[in-house]
Every structure is written in structure tokens, then in C-alpha cells.
């Protein structure tokens, strides 16, 4: 052991590199442990706000003919309750948990893009604050958390209430988008050496699938929000049926996101359950392979059910049958997981502790929610129960059962990891019973009020319809529930203050996060482990001291660099060394610039918005300054007698994978736009008499040729560089060509007469704008590659800048061709009619 420094000395050396200083410097933190905790604390603050709003709702509905809240305030309160709970609590809560936990669970020192984590957090804070401030001044959204058009369109919501939702939520979604890319890449590339995919703990599998779902699921909502804001701000008619739009397009785009969203929330919670249950069953999880297959099945099937939210809008029987069958079928992979958990407990030696109480609560509540979900999947029943309190009961059983109960189990399981102290248990048990009883009293009765015909979203009701006592009991239950949550909060505070300290792994768990010291050090592991078996059957108590003593990979501090390892996606073989960027204020400044863009749009200062966007882009361009290498260094020592190259010298590095992932996400948004255009063409009213759209074809051909030239130049530049040639001129030519394509697409947009006259023109106008934006981005990426080359960051081996230029230029070309195809198709739609 003499070759290793003492654990204390190694800790001091690494902490000096990774730590975030106190005071204002905390604002520069990019550390995943700190940011994960910030995400979770902020999410719990929003949970408290959402809970207070629900108290107001139940106070209003406790008695008939109540005048406690007027209808307008009630509309804002229930809209904000749903919005806060879904967008500001549930999603960020699991993001924060994953941000905190995944690197520790996978055996890494941080996430792939620490600055992006910080940027996401600031966007979440600022975007969420916009919504809360708007509520405090009485301008909160008031059209329901799903913002259906035409209610949310300008004629029916003329104030800024709907804009607050559209812009605030889109701003917050930046954090979801960045987290999705980051988690996806981190799970695939930044595991401990030897941790092949088939050795990954199930939580990582769940989060991998969840991140994949977010990559595909969020863009339709973002596009829908952009289109609705364009309609509200600039009168482009996407949802106005009098001008070729269709309110159903909004419902499709919203629920294309909205239904997978339920599973996006449930899967991380299920991942936590799959991690906790084996610990308390004292045996490995049953059905590891079946669970992986079930997660994949759930993820895909969840994208095929969105129309079950729209069963009553008038859809042909065949389409109803598709979505009804898929909605019922998704219960099967869910049941596979439930039976795997029950089987694990049944075949193990279960020991009861606080997390297990909440797991029992989860089984009861979630199974009831799942069964009512199968009922609602059946079209005849759905038609009867649609928009009634039965649906309110169902969704709360699914979301609270599927997320809040597992979250509370996870809090009691992992809080000792965060605090370094164990629970006192005095308040834990009564808190659980208050929550379980309060929840069921509140929401089980809503099944009955719903079946008795009480519709959702009404602010009051007459006293002679038989709903009085059920509503009163629901309200009493909700206050019992709130007392339970207050006790949990007090319990957690007491744990931090008075809980007994422990050394490592108090639950005798088998996953790597318990191999860190508790609370965890800034760098997680003083050295990184080698994994030779399934990573949920380890012995953290033995591994931890060995790693703290520098016995694993990278058990040293080198050149002040934040070093961690990347592995082959499938086998887990060590592939390269990553030097992560240090702490920086740039994410905060960039998020503030982004906030200026959104606030300018919100307050209709449209001259200011482009400046905010330009400032954001300019700040993003500063991010890579100083990162990378100016010489080829070849393989470097990583300990244990092994050497690997730096990430910049490897073609499959995390930056390239992240950009590929971002392009998939961007492509999904573009596909949603194409779907929107084609949907309106085929389904929307008032397209029969629309005339052909005469656009100068030569401009389109020139734009496509210019974009093609740009893409070709970047592709050839990459090949030339790989063989040692000079690619300066090719990159310059690519940038110029894409800039020309941008100008030509803008010229085409200007050539459209009256884009506000009809959805046909509005869709083509927006599509051309999307193409112009992506040609501009392609020009920027080509220029960036050129700049990196001039500064010496590019060589035949260090080709990341050129690969990125090719990826974005190739994508721009694809967009250019498809947008012109869409313009041609829609432009000629009226010709033959």
C-alpha cells in the first residue's frame, strides 16, 4: 500500500480541485452533488407551494355554493396547482435525484457536462420564479394545466396569463432537455470500468430509458408552446379553425408529451423501488432481465396512448381501438415490475423499516390507480367518466402512488447518504399513517363524486346534487394529508439536526453510492472502482475504504484537473480520460441572458428578445474557451497499470454523443412540426378554398444548394483533416454557404404574402424560419470549427470540432430539403381543391 498516498492526504488534494468555495462563489458551482441537492430542495419548495394551492382548492370545494375563492382566482389556483406539481415539482425532483445519485451509482466523479447541469438549474429557478411571481400578482395561467385552445388563444385569454405558462414552462423545460441529454450520455459513457450494460444497476436502466423518453417526449410540447405563443403574439393561425388551424393539433402535441410524461415521472420512481426493495428483502432483485424488457415495453407503449385523453373529441372507431388497446396493454409491463417486486419480497427475508412502509403504501395506492387506468382505457367507460372527478381521483392515485410514495421511500432510504445521519423514527411512523389515510380519504371519495357526475375544474356546486358530504370528507382528508407531509418535513429537519452518525452503508445495500463517505465528498470517489459483477450486488463497506485509499483508477490528483473515466457503451471497457470543466459563473450569466429573452417576449418587448437570444448564444460560445488540448498527448496513466487517451483524441467522446442526442431531440421537434403541417392539411377545416402559395422556386433551390454545399464542405473538411491536410478554406466556405442559405430562407419567409391569413402560410412561414435558424446554427458550428482549428485545438486525432460542424451542417441540409418539400406540398394544397 505504500505506493498510495494516505486517504486523508488524497482527500485534501482532490477536495482542493473539486470543492466549491463558500460565499458568493457558491453561485459558480457546477458540482453534481451540490446541484442535485439544489434541484431537490427547490422542487420540494415548489411541492409545498403546490400543496398550499391544493389546500385552497379543497377549502373552496368543502361546502356547496362557497364564496371563499372567486371563479377567476379558483381558475388560477387549480391551473397553477397542476402546473407546479407536474412541471416544477415532479420532473425536477427526479432530475435532481438522478443528478445527485447517478454518478455515485455508476462509479463516476461527476456528470458528463457539469456546466450544463448548472445552466439547467438556473433556468429551472428563473422559469419557475416567473410562474410564481405571476401568481402572486394575480396574473397566473388560468386555462388548466394543459392549456387547451381555443380557451388559451388570445380572443378568450387576452391577458398575459397564458403567455406566462407558455414562456415560463418552456424556460423551465430547458432544464429537462439539458438533463435528458446529460443523463443519457452519462449513463452510456461514464460508468466504472468493467460495468457492462448487463451489470448496470436497475436504477441506471430506468434512468437511461427515462432520458430516452424525455428526448423524444418533450419536443412536441416545446413545439406546441412555440406555435401557440406565435399565434398569441403574432397572430399566426395554427389553432384557429376559421383560418385553417385546428384546436385538436394542440391536444395532439400536448398529449404526445403529456402521456409519456406520466411514465417519465413513474419510471425513475420505479427505479428507486427496484433499488430499495432488494435491500430490505435482503436478496437480489427477481427478474432483472424481465424488468429491463418491461421498461423498454412501457417506454414505447406509453407513446402510443396519447389519444386516450381525447376519446371524446370525435375520432373514428379504428383510431379509438388502436389507442384503447395500447392503453390497456401498457398495464402488462407495469404488472411485470409489480410482480417482480412482490416476488423479491416474498422470496427474501424482508425487514421492516420506514422506507418499507412507503413501499407498502405505494403498492396499495398505485395498484388502485393502475386498475382505474385500465377502466379509463375502455372507450365506453371513458366517455362516461371523461372530465369528471373520477379522472381526478385516477390521476392522483397514479401520480401520488407512482411518484410521491416511492419518493418518500427514497428520501428515507437515501437521506442518510446526504446528511450522514440516520432517521430518529419518532415522527416517521405517524407521518406515514397520516399520509396514507389522508390521501385515501381525499381521493378515493373522488371516484364516487366523479361517478355521481361532478365535473372537474368547477369552482363551486349546488347543494342538492348529493356531492356535499363526499366533498367535505375529501377536504378533511386533504388536511390530514397535509399534516402528514408537515410531519415528514419536521422529521427530516430533526434527522439533519439530531440523527445518529454512521460510517458507511447503514442499510447493507449493494450499490456503489454507499461506497462513498457520507455525506459524500465533492469528488465522490478518491479512486474509481473496477466492477467485475452485477453492480447491485457489491459490498460497499469493503470497496469504500479501498477506493478512499487510492486503490482504484485515478487514485491521485494531477495538474489540478477534474479527471474521470469514460467507457465503451456496451462492455464497460475503459476507453478514455475526461477532464471535466471547473466551476464557473458562465452558466449563471448564460441563464440570465436566456431569462432576458423570455422576459422580453413575455412583456412584448420584441426588439429586446433577439438581443437576449444573441447574448445567450455569445455566452455559450465562451463556454469552450480554454477547454480541450493543443497537442496530441497520447495515452496517459490512469492507475492500475493502464493508460488511455484523453477524450479530445477519441472519436466517440461524450461531446459528440451529446450532440448526436441533441440532434435526435431537435429532429423530434422538427418531426412534430412536419406532423402539425400535415395534420392541418389532412384534417383541419377551411383548406378547401385556400389558394396555391406562389413562392419563388429558384430561391428555394438556391437555399438547398447552398446548405448542401455547406454540409459537403464540412464533411470533406473532416476527411481532409483526418489525413493530415488543411481544412481552413473548406470550413470557411461551409460557413459562408450556410450563411447564404440562411439569407435565402429568410428571403423566402418575406416572400410569403400575409402569413397570418391562413394556417397553410403560417406553417410554411414557421418551417422556413426553422430552416433559416438551423442554417445559421450550421454556419456558427462551421465557424466554431474554424476558430478551434486556428487556435490549435484541432489535429488529425483531435477532430471533435470538425465532427460537430459536420453533424449540424448535415442536419441543416436535411431540414432544408424537408422544409422545401413541406412548403411545396402545403403550397399546392389549394390548387386542385
Amino acid at each position, binding site marked *: 500500500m505504500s505506493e498510495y498516498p494516505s486517504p486523508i492526504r488524497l482527500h485534501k488534494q482532490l477536495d482542493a480541485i473539486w470543492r466549491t468555495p463558500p460565499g458568493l462563489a457558491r453561485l459558480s458551482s457546477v458540482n453534481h452533488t451540490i446541484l442535485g441537492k439544489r434541484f431537490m430542495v427547490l422542487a420540494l419548495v415548489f411541492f409545498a407551494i403546490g400543496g398550499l394551492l391544493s389546500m385552497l382548492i379543497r377549502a373552496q370545494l368543502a361546502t356547496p355554493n362557497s364564496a371563499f375563492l372567486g371563479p377567476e382566482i379558483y381558475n388560477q389556483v387549480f391551473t397553477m396547482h397542476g402546473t407546479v406539481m407536474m412541471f416544477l415539482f415532479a420532473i425536477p425532483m427526479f432530475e435532481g435525484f438522478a443528478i445527485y445519485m447517478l454518478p455515485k451509482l455508476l462509479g463516476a466523479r461527476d456528470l458528463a457536462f457539469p456546466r450544463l447541469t448548472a445552466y439547467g438549474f438556473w433556468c429551472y429557478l428563473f422559469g419557475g420564479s416567473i410562474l410564481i411571481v405571476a401568481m402572486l400578482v394575480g396574473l397566473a395561467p388560468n386555462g388548466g394545466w394543459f392549456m387547451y385552445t381555443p380557451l388559451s388563444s388570445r380572443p378568450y385569454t387576452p391577458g398575459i396569463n397564458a403567455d406566462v405558462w407558455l414562456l415560463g414552462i418552456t424556460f423551465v423545460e430547458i432544464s429537462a432537455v439539458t438533463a435528458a441529454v446529460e443523463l443519457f450520455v452519462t449513463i452510456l459513457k461514464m460508468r466504472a470500468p468493467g460495468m*457492462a*450494460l*448487463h451489470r448496470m444497476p436497475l436504477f441506471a436502466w430506468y434512468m437511461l430509458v427515462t432520458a430516452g423518453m424525455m428526448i423524444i417526449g418533450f419536443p412536441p410540447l416545446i413545439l406546441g408552446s412555440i406555435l401557440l405563443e406565435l399565434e398569441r403574439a403574432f397572430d399566426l393561425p395554427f389553432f384557429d379553425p376559421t383560418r385553417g388551424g385546428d384546436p385538436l393539433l394542440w391536444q395532439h402535441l400536448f398529449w404526445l408529451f403529456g402521456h409519456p410524461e406520466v411514465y417519465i415521472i413513474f419510471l425513475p420512481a420505479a427505479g428507486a423501488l427496484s433499488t430499495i426493495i432488494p435491500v430490505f428483502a435482503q436478496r437480489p432483485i427477481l427478474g*432483472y*432481465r*424481465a424488468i*429491463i*424488457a*418491461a421498461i*423498454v*415495453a412501457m*417506454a*414505447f*407503449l406509453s*407513446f*402510443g396512448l396519447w389519444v386516450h385523453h381525447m376519446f371524446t373529441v370525435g375520432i*373514428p*372507431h*379504428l*383510431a*379509438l*381501438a*388502436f389507442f384503447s*388497446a*395500447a392503453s390497456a*396493454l401498457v398495464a*402488462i*409491463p407495469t404488472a411485470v415490475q409489480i410482480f417482480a417486486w412482490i416476488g423479491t419480497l416474498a422470496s427474501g427475508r424482508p425487514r421492516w423499516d420506514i422506507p418499507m412502509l412507503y413501499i407498502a403504501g405505494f403498492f396499495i395506492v398505485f395498484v388502485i390507480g393502475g386498475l382505474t387506468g385500465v377502466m379509463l382505457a375502455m372507450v365506453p367507460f371513458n366517455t362516461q367518466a371523461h372530465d369528471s372527478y373520477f379522472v381526478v381521483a385516477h390521476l392522483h392515485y397514479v401520480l401520488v402512488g407512482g411518484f410521491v410514495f416511492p419518493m418518500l421511500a427514497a428520501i428515507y432510504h437515501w437521506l442518510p447518504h446526504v446528511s450522514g445521519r440516520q432517521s430518529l423514527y419518532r415522527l416517521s411512523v405517524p407521518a406515514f399513517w397520516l399520509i396514507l389515510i389522508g390521501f385515501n380519504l381525499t381521493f378515493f371519495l373522488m371516484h364516487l363524486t366523479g361517478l355521481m357526475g361532478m365535473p372537474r375544474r368547477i369552482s363551486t356546486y349546488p347543494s342538492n346534487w348529493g356531492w356535499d358530504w363526499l366533498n367535505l370528507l375529501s377536504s378533511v382528508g386533504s388536511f390530514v394529508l397535509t399534516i402528514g407531509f408537515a410531519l415528514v418535513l419536521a422529521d427530516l429537519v430533526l434527522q439533519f439536526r439530531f440523527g445518529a452518525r454512521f460510517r458507511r452503508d447503514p442499510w447493507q445495500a449493494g450499490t456503489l453510492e454507499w461506497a462513498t463517505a457520507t455525506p459524500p465528498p465533492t469528488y465522490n470517489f478518491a479512486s474509481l472502482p473496477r466492477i467485475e459483477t452485477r453492480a447491485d450486488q457489491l459490498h460497499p463497506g469493503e470497496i469504500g475504504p479501498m477506493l478512499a485509499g487510492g486503490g482504484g483508477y485515478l487514485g491521485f490528483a494531477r495538474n489540478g484537473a477534474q479527471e474521470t473515466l469514460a467507457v*465503451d*457503451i*456496451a*462492455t464497460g*471497457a475503459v476507453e478514455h480520460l475526461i477532464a471535466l470543466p471547473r466551476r464557473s459563473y458562465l452558466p449563471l450569466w448564460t441563464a440570465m441572458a436566456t431569462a432576458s429573452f423570455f422576459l422580453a417576449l413575455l412583456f412584448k418587448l420584441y426588439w429586446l428578445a433577439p438581443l437576449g437570444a444573441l447574448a445567450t448564444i455569445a455566452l455559450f460560445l465562451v463556454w469552450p474557451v480554454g477547454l480541450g488540448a493543443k497537442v496530441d498527448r497520447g495515452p496517459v496513466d490512469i492507475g492500475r497499470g493502464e493508460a488511455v487517451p484523453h477524450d479530445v483524441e477519441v472519436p466517440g467522446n461524450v461531446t459528440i454523443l451529446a450532440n448526436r442526442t441533441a440532434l435526435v431531440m431537435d429532429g423530434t421537434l422538427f418531426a412534430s412540426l412536419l406532423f402539425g403541417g400535415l395534420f392541418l392539411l*389532412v*384534417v383541419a377545416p377551411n383548406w378547401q378554398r385556400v389558394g396555391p402559395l406562389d413562392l419563388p422556386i429558384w430561391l428555394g433551390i438556391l437555399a438547398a444548394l447552398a446548405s448542401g454545399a455547406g454540409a459537403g464542405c464540412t464533411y470533406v473538411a473532416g476527411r481532409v483533416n483526418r489525413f493530415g491536410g488543411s481544412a481552413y478554406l473548406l470550413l470557411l466556405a461551409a460557413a459562408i454557404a450556410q450563411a447564404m442559405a440562411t439569407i435565402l430562407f429568410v428571403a423566402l419567409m418575406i416572400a410569403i404574402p400575409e402569413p397570418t391569413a391562413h394556417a397553410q402560410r403560417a406553417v410554411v412561414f414557421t418551417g422556413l424560419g426553422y430552416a433559416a435558424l438551423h442554417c445559421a446554427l450550421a454556419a456558427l458550428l462551421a465557424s466554431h470549427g474554424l476558430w478551434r482549428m486556428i487556435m490549435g485545438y484541432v489535429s488529425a486525432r483531435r477532430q471533435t470540432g470538425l465532427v460537430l460542424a459536420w453533424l449540424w451542417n448535415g442536419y441543416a441540409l436535411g431540414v432544408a430539403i424537408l422544409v422545401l418539400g413541406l412548403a411545396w406540398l402545403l403550397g399546392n394544397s389549394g390548387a386542385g381543391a
Partner: protein
Amino acid sequence: MSQGTRHGLVRLVAGFAIWSIAFIVLYAAQALGCAYGWGAWHRPVLIVIYLFALAPLIWLSTRPRPDGTDAILPTAARWANRAALLASVLVFLPVTFASLCA
């Protein structure tokens, strides 16, 4: 990375990727057929798409059973692909009998 392992990862999502594509194509064909009056051709077109989607799923679901510890992923993939086949048979079956445009 071994080819087998990489294929295991692709196969894990292959079946449901085919299911998704078939779902989109069938839903689009249903809407187009109603909008543009495909008449008597509408249902046969949908049935052909249905059968066309089942063929690769049947092939994926009948791959040889993998062995060994490295077989965890291929086994999960096999089960996922069988689930995709089952989902396709059940979810798309209504193209054979349900009312197409009303």
C-alpha cells in the same frame, strides 16, 4: 465492444421501434384514407401494412436462445421483441374489423 453485445443493445429496442413505425404508418394511412376517400382499397391497404409489420417482428422473436452470462441483454431483447410482436398483433388487429372513418 463485441458485435454480439452491440447487437444486443440494438435488438433490445428493435421490436418496439418497428411497432412504433407501424403504429405511425397505420394511423397516418387511416387518416389519409378517410380524408382522400380511398373507399374499398382503404382496409386492404391497412391489412397489408399490418402484415408487413408483423413479418420482421416474427423474425426477431424467433432468434435462437442466447446462452452464458453475456446473454442477459440478448435475453431481455428477446422478451422485449416478443412483447412487441404481441402488442402489434393486439393493437393493430382492429384494422381487420373496426369502422375506418366513423
